[in-house]
């Protein structure tokens, strides 16, 4: 920030104890080619408005904490540079989530949905004494892309279906569930598909695809959701056939 170029940022402010509604406040920030939006926010907090609230941690697109809307598009503040917005920009909290204060949103629903899809290895009876559970590169490649998700929530802000129906499990949670469905060490696919094949599961997705566009780690949640639909449809067909078979068996037992 040595050459002291100035840029106008409009930042959404909201303190529920004081303000009746959120409003945009203009701030001038000094910047150079290396200034990210997170740097700009931190500058404002340190020098201009100490009460400005935003989440951040790693500053290198790993933790997924600093998701905000920049000029209406969901972005990580640490990965987006001010130099790409020479005419200034508007910074708002992620849409589709309730705002707690300034740029901080309530991610409770999102975290619950991740929990609902059990993103961990299920049904693997191996013990530490059995040694490492090895995988071939091909087995790893099946889910590797989907394991890149950092739970930043940008895809939820991008998803029009989540905006219409906040009960929709959403892109990141389903991608994480699908990542374990594809893992050769996991045996919990049927358990997860029970959750995915509900009204608010994969079928709420209409393949808009914006989630994959905004994903900062290129995890491609839209692809995961379409693959989940195919899995879910096969599981549905199998359950119908099994139901028929079970009926025949019970009918046979009666006669």
């Amino acid at each position: 920030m040595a050459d002291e170029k100035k840029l106008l940022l409009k930042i959404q402010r909201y303190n529920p104890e004081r303000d009746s509604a959120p409003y945009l406040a203009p701030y001038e920030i000094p910047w150079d080619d290396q200034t990210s939006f997170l740097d700009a926010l931190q500058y404002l907090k340190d020098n201009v408005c100490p009460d400005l609230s935003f989440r951040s941690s790693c500053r290198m697109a790993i933790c997924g904490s600093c998701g905000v809307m920049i000029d209406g598009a969901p972005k990580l503040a640490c990965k987006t540079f001010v130099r790409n917005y020479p005419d200034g920009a508007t910074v708002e909290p992620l849409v589709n989530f309730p705002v707690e204060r300034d740029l901080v949103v309530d991610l409770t629903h999102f975290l619950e949905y991740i929990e609902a899809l059990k993103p961990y290895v299920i049904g693997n009876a191996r013990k530490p004494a059995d040694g490492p559970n090895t995988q071939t590169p091909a087995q790893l490649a099946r889910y590797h892309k989907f394991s890149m998700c950092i739970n930043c929530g940008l895809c939820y802000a991008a998803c029009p279906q989540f905006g219409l129906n906040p009960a929709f499990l959403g892109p990141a949670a389903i991608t994480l569930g699908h990542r374990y469905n594809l893992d050769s060490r996991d045996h919990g696919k049927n358990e997860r598909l029970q959750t995915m094949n509900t009204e608010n599961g994969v079928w709420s997705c209409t393949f808009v695809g914006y989630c994959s566009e905004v994903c900062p780690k290129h995890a491609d949640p839209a692809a995961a959701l379409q693959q989940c639909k195919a899995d879910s449809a096969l599981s549905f067909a199998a359950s119908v056939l099994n139901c028929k078979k079970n009926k025949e068996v019970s009918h046979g037992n009666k006669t």
Partner: protein
Amino acid sequence: MSNHTGKQTKEPVFWGLFGAGGMFGAVCAPALILSLLLLYPYFGECEEAGLFYQFFKTGVGRLFLALFISLTAWCGLHRIAHCLHDLKMWTAGRARLCYASAALITLFSIIGIFRY
């Protein structure tokens, strides 16, 4: 925590028909439009029925045409049902109306194609 262990949805059936119709339409529609709407009437096949036209008089040809019409109808009406949902229009009975229309088109296409 929210309850996501609800009733299993029947959406895979409609999504399967939507996918089949979309695929069928994308692969076959250009060939059908080219053959039946352009090549047949405008480029020399008007006088007598050509090979392609004769194909639609056979059982397999009729089945192909019936599948084409009904599956693309399922595809289009499924998409319309979702568009109406996105536009928050016609919430009550939207899906039923669209799928009933697709079922009627299927019925009429089968009757129309195999009866004549």
